[in-house]
């Protein structure tokens, strides 16, 4: 069976199966969820390992997933499967992943597997909780694997609705954030972004007449169409990333959500936005991307610096990590804005690394919040004494987040910065790159403060009885996440090989878009100049 399909079907099937299980059989519910997500993880790993060598068995199938027309041996999308659905509308169920998609599928698989294990502590409405969680993750897998715009959107909506329930029912209200408010805001902004993107996607369908994403890549939209619809599609996805100033839903949502949902939210949902920008906005509209991306390069600096400084002002641990996520997604956007091979490779790798790191941090905050019922730094302190394991893990997560070597975040963030510096001719003379380096300093400020205030120093009397992760099952998710960060931090090449496979065609498109724009400008200039001067203008243009 196709491993990609299996990866998607496992949580879907488990969702359905859970409906028929007695809600008091908590052990069975947990077991089914763990096995299903474990199967997804196994399949994702299988695909990751076999990715370089994968070939289609049937030439006909292969052709359907070859984006580069004419190069039948270059299969950009692997593990493809296509089933026609409504032929009149050109709707078909098509799955397939390139390197970018696979990296995201793997990220999702890691996080949901650990998320399910972290959620063993959930006591109320266990059955409904896992149903929502698995439905959510089915949607996320679907988005990353879909090659049909219709299903892309369908899966996207499938992910958002359980999110609403998960935060609304199992979330918490604290001093800093009201649960209902946060839930409503999150869902409304996610939906608003989605609607924006939907308008764009409908326009794309109207223009090209197909939902087939492989065909759409080759469609070649006119430059005027691109110029109008790129911003629409881009903004729709950017709200998800979340790009400044559309970000305020995200930290509040984190603060109200239960641990596993925060993990998925920061780890995966944010990446849906960045993935959409790369997979749809930049791929379909490369010419417009060339025009607009430098402005993204300005906005992402707000993400990095503003997000970081707002995190400095926070005392609620979840808000700190929440704003830090928005700050780090600024690096992803910077990598995208650089439109260079190094930068986008770094951006996708950072999406993976940041997802794992932030999931680890949120899981740990959830662990002690369940016991302390406060996340305020002023109430905490000295917890290293009673929770050495959790404390060590939190220090590791902070070090990873602060971009220290040995962790995947370091490699990817540095690649983004190098890419942005490399693209300094188009990206504001390297100023965003300089600000991004300064962002690393700011990251250090709020993370070290969080580490020191919560974990070091004297332990208040009332926290004497906090309990550490002791059993194997309790420790496993943390060890997995840390291990992933360390393995890809020491040995990033396997991940980069996979990512590069997906990024390379995209960068080629972007380069072609830039060339087309330059040609356009040159032609326009030629038209404005009288005949005799044409020769000079041409050499002038080429001399640049």
């Amino acid at each position: 069976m196709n491993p990609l399909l299996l990866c998607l079907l496992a949580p879907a099937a488990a969702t359905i199966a859970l409906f028929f299980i007695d809600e008091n059989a908590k052990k069975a519910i947990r077991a089914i969820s763990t096995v299903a997500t474990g199967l997804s993880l196994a399949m994702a790993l299988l695909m990751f390992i076999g990715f370089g060598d994968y070939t289609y068995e049937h030439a006909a199938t292969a052709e359907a997933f070859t984006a580069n027309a004419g190069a039948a041996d270059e299969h950009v999308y692997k593990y493809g499967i296509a089933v026609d659905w409504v032929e009149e509308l050109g709707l078909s169920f098509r799955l397939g992943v390139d390197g970018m998609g696979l990296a995201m599928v793997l990220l999702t698989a890691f996080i949901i597997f650990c998320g399910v294990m972290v959620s063993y502590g959930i006591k109320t409405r266990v059955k409904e909780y896992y149903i929502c969680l698995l439905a959510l993750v089915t949607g996320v897998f679907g988005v990353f694997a879909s090659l049909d715009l219709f299903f892309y959107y369908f899966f996207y909506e499938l992910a958002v609705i359980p999110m609403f329930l998960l935060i609304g029912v199992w979330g918490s209200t604290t001093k800093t954030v009201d649960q209902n408010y946060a839930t409503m805001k999150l869902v409304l902004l996610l939906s608003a972004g989605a609607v924006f993107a939907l308008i764009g996607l409908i326009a794309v369908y109207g223009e090209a007449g197909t939902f087939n994403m492989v065909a759409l890549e080759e469609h070649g939209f006119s430059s005027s169409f691109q110029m109008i619809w790129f911003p629409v599609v881009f903004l729709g996805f950017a709200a998800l990333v979340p790009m400044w100033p559309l970000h305020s839903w995200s930290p509040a949502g984190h603060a109200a959500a239960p641990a596993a949902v925060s993990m998925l939210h920061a780890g995966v949902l944010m990446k849906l936005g960045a993935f959409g920008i790369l997979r749809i906005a930049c791929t379909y509209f490369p010419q417009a991307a060339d025009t607009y991306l430098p402005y993204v390069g300005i906005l992402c600096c707000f993400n990095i610096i503003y997000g970081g400084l707002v995190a400095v002002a926070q005392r609620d641990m979840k808000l700190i990590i929440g704003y830090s996520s928005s700050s780090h997604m600024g690096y992803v956007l910077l990598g995208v804005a650089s439109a260079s091979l190094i930068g986008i490779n770094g951006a996708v790798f950072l999406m993976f690394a940041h997802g794992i790191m932030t999931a680890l941090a949120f899981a740990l905050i959830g662990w002690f919040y369940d016991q302390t019922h406060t996340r305020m730094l002023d109430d905490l302190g000295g917890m290293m004494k009673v929770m050495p394991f959790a404390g060590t893990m939190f220090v590791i997560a902070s070090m990873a987040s602060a971009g220290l070597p040995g962790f995947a975040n370091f490699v990817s963030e540095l690649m983004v910065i190098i890419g942005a510096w490399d693209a300094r001719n188009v990206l504001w003379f390297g100023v965003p790159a300089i600000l991004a380096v300064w962002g690393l300093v700011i990251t250090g400020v709020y993370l070290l403060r969080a580490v020191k205030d919560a974990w070091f120093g004297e332990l208040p009397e009332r926290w004497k009885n906090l309990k550490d992760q002791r059993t194997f099952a309790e420790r496993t998710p943390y060890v997995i996440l840390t291990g992933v960060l360390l393995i890809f931090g020491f040995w990033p090449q396997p991940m980069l090989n996979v990512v590069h496979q997906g990024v390379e065609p995209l960068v080629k498109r972007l380069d072609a878009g830039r060339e087309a724009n330059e040609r356009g400008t040159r032609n326009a200039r030629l038209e404005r100049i009288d005949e005799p001067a044409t020769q000079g203008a041409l050499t002038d243009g080429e001399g640049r």
Partner: protein
Amino acid sequence: MDGAFLTFLAAKGEPTLINTGFASWAAWVILFAPLLVAFLVTAVPAIRKANGLAAALSISSVGLGLVLTLFVYFFPMLQAGDNVYEHIVSWVAIGDSPLITFGTRMDALAVTMTLVVTGVGFAIFVYALGYMKGDESMGRFYGKFALFVFSMLGIVMSPNFFQTFIFWELVGVSSYLLIGYYWRKHSAGEAAKKAFMTNRVGDFGFLLGILMVWAAVGDATGAFGQDVYSAFDFTVIERAVQTLGASTLFWDSIGYAAIAAALVFCGAMGKSAQFPLHVWLPDAMEGPTPVSALMHAATMVAAGVYMIIRCNFIIAYAEWAPTLICWLGGITAFIAASMAITQNDIKKVLAYSTLSQLGYMTMALGAGAYTAAMFHLTTHAFFKALLFLCAGSVIHGCHHEQDMRHMGGLKSKMPTTYKTWFVGTIALTALLPIAGWWSKDEILGATRITDMVWGSEILLALGVLVAGMTAFYMWRATYMTFGGEYRGHAKPHESPKVMTMPLVALAFFSLFIGFIGIPDGTFGAGTKTNWFEGWLHHWHVGPYAKMVWPLAIIATGVALVGFLIARKIYRNAGGNDPLPAKLGGIWRLWDNLYYVDNFYLWLVKKVQQGVAKVFWFFERWILIQAVINGLSQTVRISGDRVRRVQSGRLGNYVTSFLLGAAVVGLLVLLQVGLASAGGK
């Protein structure tokens, strides 16, 4: 590294890159043995909890490094020529082109530094056995200490800028972990944070400097048909600078080379604690004393100096950068020496002394005397580690008393410690021609000779003055600690053998290490200026370091004056320090550390926190409250209005339809308009 590039290098003549042989694989073992131990100790609870086992593993990993490095040093092919043993693998590649490589490089410079790190490190690792005895988490301590040795060796053996940056950060992490070792103490946590953040600020400049050099060299080596991505490599940068000349290479605009060099120096400014980023080092004394000795005196703080020597070809050609570096070094040397005079904590005296000596080294870097800087680094590593360990022994013997006012009379109570401290003090204050005498006077000589630095005469005078101040504060500390009567409460005792043996070993080296730099002409004819210079001369550009004899005699005289003043004031002072009354305002300025720390505290507490608060205010009230919530209010109210639109009146529907059509039409027109303007 690809074959074409090796050919390119070979065509340029020396040096020869050899990537096989004993030295290149030994380097990997030397580098990774401590990491393996650090990992085992941290990850395997059984080893961590067995303190003795963890210590034994750590000590043997450093010992193995020392033995192997000695073998490499005596390795005939390295001795014979100016060979480089380099072994490089691709670490991060984009598609087929390597972006970041990882490797080990063994050349004369790296071997010298590795010997210092493993040699001094071995002595201190053994010493820590005694010092940390009774600490229940000694395993944890040794794990982190081994991690530090790994990180430090990574910088030493790094063949490219990026790898240097990786280990640069790792050294910062291990420093953070070890300063905060006593994490229950509030001050230790704060000091660790301060050290980390100050270094981060330095690294901000460092990374930008690396990127600037990378971009310039990458563009230039592209002309050779080389892969631009290898432009992090020191060898590539050196060749590019030497072949093309800095002015061609750093094409962009005037000052590019100088800015790049100054930014690279920012990294050294953080790690080697140069003014204005010197504030973290004295606070770093919160860590255990062995940590202070190895990291915050002998090796880690010297990493900045080492790194600049490693890429001296960037600095030497960089317009005003040498002047900047030399001046910052001179200023650091002076202010640190003056602050050392006011300290009463024995470790703080040594910490400021370290700052001051690092200032000397930085002066030498600015003056282009790279060998002199390396020479002083080497001798300083031995005698300053010795002094710190002596201080540790005193603290241990006095039951964790660090205030010199509560010491005194330890000369007879701790004879071995006193004798070795005496050797260290002589070596540091350069009263007799051992260790520091040779190396410091070489630096002063270089400041005299150089033509790269504006205002070098002033710096020379400052340097001589600092020699006197050094003698003053060191003998002040000596008299307060060892002279007179014992003023403390607990009964002092001499430290155990495991602690005094390393002291004796380091004292031995402090006595004799200086002789590697005796000018050849001193005892007969010679071709090179001295042996150490001859060993390293291939690895730097610019003039050879020379000893300027008259200057050396003047400096010694000034040091003697400093010693005599200290003797007069403190010999019979007991616990009272008469100096504050005599110096008045100047003392207060020094005692308050020139108010630099206060200024930074203000910057962090008021400015940074203020900006953060302003942004948070904007986020909370303008963005969320006004825009987002305002929008939702608008939607709610307009929802009420829209309800009335469903009025059933045809006219309203027609109006709405027309409005909608107009919007769609507008979009279509916009597209058509763009199409005609855009050319497609």
